């Protein structure tokens, strides 16, 4: 049974005058209440009826806007052909309802985005008699959609056009989910190739297991990895990956990965390492050969010294042998050192003293040598003169200080201070002769001590009181130049 308000003109129901009045009032108030532009076009009479909402959107009606095609000129030129065609098709193809979205010019000249919904009222033969519709201003919604789309496009661009190869993969399935152009170009796989693969499929065989193991912490924040990947042409590249978990709309757990190809960098590092290793070997070999050559000279002098029974003739040769061994020992220490350019002075002094005692004393235990030394590391340019100075001072003590004495001791102290190295060598021997001025002494030993000290800008103080003491201060600044 029909209820009031359920009537529609096209179903053949003939309402009473009262009902028509109610229907008309309802239509009037609804058309007034809405902010939409409601219109009624009578195709036969060519008359157009509009509600007040029309004025809200389009201002006063102009004379030429009372035609049934009044709105054609107001449709944005880019939308016009499409909209008119869709409306005409709906009218001609016996459709009841038509809707479209387009831009419509407002009274102030600007365009509003609108959604137009209309019903066609047809006669018994299906010919459209009237078109009744409502135009809603959806500019705000459309603007928001456009801004959202623009934002999506912008961020999509950051990913898609990023010069760094990037992709997104599914943490659970390990499928590639998205790939940017740089990745496609760098790896040679097409987008379709990527999307049909899992991330393990571009891994070098030996890396697959470690990768799977590492993925156990796939939910963690920004991470950095070093792996090897396989390009489509089979080339294996070294890569550094930086990845971050991201959640996409449907809750899929994914990670965004940026890939940096470090193959060239690793190769360069390897070449530098190899080159450095080769130079280290070469430098080691140089120290080794220098030491061997010094050993040969030492041995030749040793042979020659053995030919003399007279100490006066033999001693200068033995002293020269000791100087050669002093230098040879430097090269031995350099050869053993990690840097190949610096030696530990403490260790050197111990070996130097042992060698000197062995070659110059008939009984190694008859001279007590006390060494107190900081762990001083000396550059080779300083180590050789330093070693020779110490050798000369010790030689002098062993040779001259203890004649006729039973209590024989030498102390060596090496300290590293803020701006210099301080070496003090003292013996408890008979001291220097009263008229002996070490600096002006015409002996090879003293000439070497003061000459080499000048060379390294060291100051030498000699005191002779209950033995002899040499105090040498070597400035660090000059030592490192």
């Amino acid at each position, binding site marked *: 049974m029909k209820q009031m308000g359920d009537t529609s003109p096209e179903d053949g129901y003939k309402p009473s005058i009262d009902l028509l009045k109610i229907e008309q009032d309802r239509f009037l108030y609804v058309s007034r209440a809405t902010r939409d532009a409601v219109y009624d076009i009578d195709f036969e009479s060519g008359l157009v009826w509009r509600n007040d909402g029309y004025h809200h959107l389009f201002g006063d009606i102009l004379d030429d806007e009372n035609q049934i095609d009044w709105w054609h000129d107001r449709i944005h030129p880019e939308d016009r052909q499409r909209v008119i065609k869709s409306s005409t098709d709906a009218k001609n193809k016996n459709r009841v309802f038509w809707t479209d979205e387009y831009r419509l010019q407002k009274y102030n000249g600007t365009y509003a985005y609108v959604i137009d919904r209309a019903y066609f009222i047809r006669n018994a033969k299906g010919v459209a008699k009237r078109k009744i519709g409502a135009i809603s201003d959806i500019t705000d919604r459309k603007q928001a959609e456009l801004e959202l789309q623009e934002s999506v496009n912008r961020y999509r661009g950051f990913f898609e056009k990023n010069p760094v190869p990037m992709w997104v993969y599914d943490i659970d399935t390990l499928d590639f989910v998205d790939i940017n152009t740089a990745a496609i170009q760098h790896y040679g796989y097409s987008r379709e190739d990527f999307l049909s693969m899992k991330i393990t499929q571009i891994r070098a065989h030996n890396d697959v297991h470690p990768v799977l193991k590492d993925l156990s912490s796939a939910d963690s924040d920004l991470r950095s990895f070093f792996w090897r990947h396989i390009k489509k042409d089979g080339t294996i590249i070294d890569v550094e990956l930086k990845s971050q978990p991201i959640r996409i709309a449907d809750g899929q757990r994914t990670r965004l990965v940026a890939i940096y190809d470090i193959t060239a960098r690793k190769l360069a590092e390897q070449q530098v390492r190899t080159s450095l290793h080769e130079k280290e070997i070469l430098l080691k070999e140089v120290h080794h050969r220098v030491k061997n050559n010094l*050993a040969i000279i030492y*041995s030749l002098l040793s042979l020659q010294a*053995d030919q003399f029974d007279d100490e006066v003739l033999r001693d200068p040769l033995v002293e020269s042998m000791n100087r050669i061994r002093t230098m040879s020992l430097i090269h*031995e220490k350099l050869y053993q050192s990690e840097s190949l350019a610096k030696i530990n002075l403490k260790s050197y002094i111990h070996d130097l003293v042992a060698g000197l005692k062995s070659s110059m004393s008939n009984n190694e235990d008859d001279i007590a040598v006390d060494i107190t030394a900081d762990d001083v590391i000396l550059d080779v340019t300083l180590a050789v003169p330093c070693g020779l100075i110490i050798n000369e001072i010790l030689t002098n003590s062993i040779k001259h200080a203890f004649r006729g004495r039973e209590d024989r001791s030498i102390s060596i102290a090496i300290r590293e201070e803020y701006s210099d190295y301080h070496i003090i060598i003292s013996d408890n021997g008979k001291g220097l002769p009263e008229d002996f001025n070490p600096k002006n002494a015409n002996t090879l030993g003293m000439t070497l001590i003061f000459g080499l000290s000048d060379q390294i800008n060291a100051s030498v103080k000699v005191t002779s009181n209950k033995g002899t003491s040499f105090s040498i201060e070597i400035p660090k600044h000059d030592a490192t130049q």
Partner: protein
Amino acid sequence: MPPSNKIIIVEDDFILAKVTHLQLSRLGYDVIGIYSSGEQTLNAIKIQQPDLILMDIQLSGKLDGIQTVEAIQQEFPIPVIYVTGNSDQSTKLRAMNTNCTEYLIKPVDKVDLELAVRKVLTPD
């Protein structure tokens, strides 16, 4: 004078070999051969077995001194003193694994050489 023990010197440097030879001769030892490579030494050792070998490590042949000693000690338990310029720990460790008596670093003082040789050849 010590008993005339037989010593072989394996040294690829002529001068060093000659100097060691003279030093040992003066001490009364009998240097029965000087060889510059491990291969020469292995051939010689089959004919004349010494009481002591003074062995350099860097030699002129394919075998180094340590490899030569390893080969010798498989057949002959002859005492060995290394006399070498190699003072690095890794070489020293390799040498110690061959049951050597002493490891002397060049240049070797004649007293040190005498003490080392005496330690091996003089009966307790």
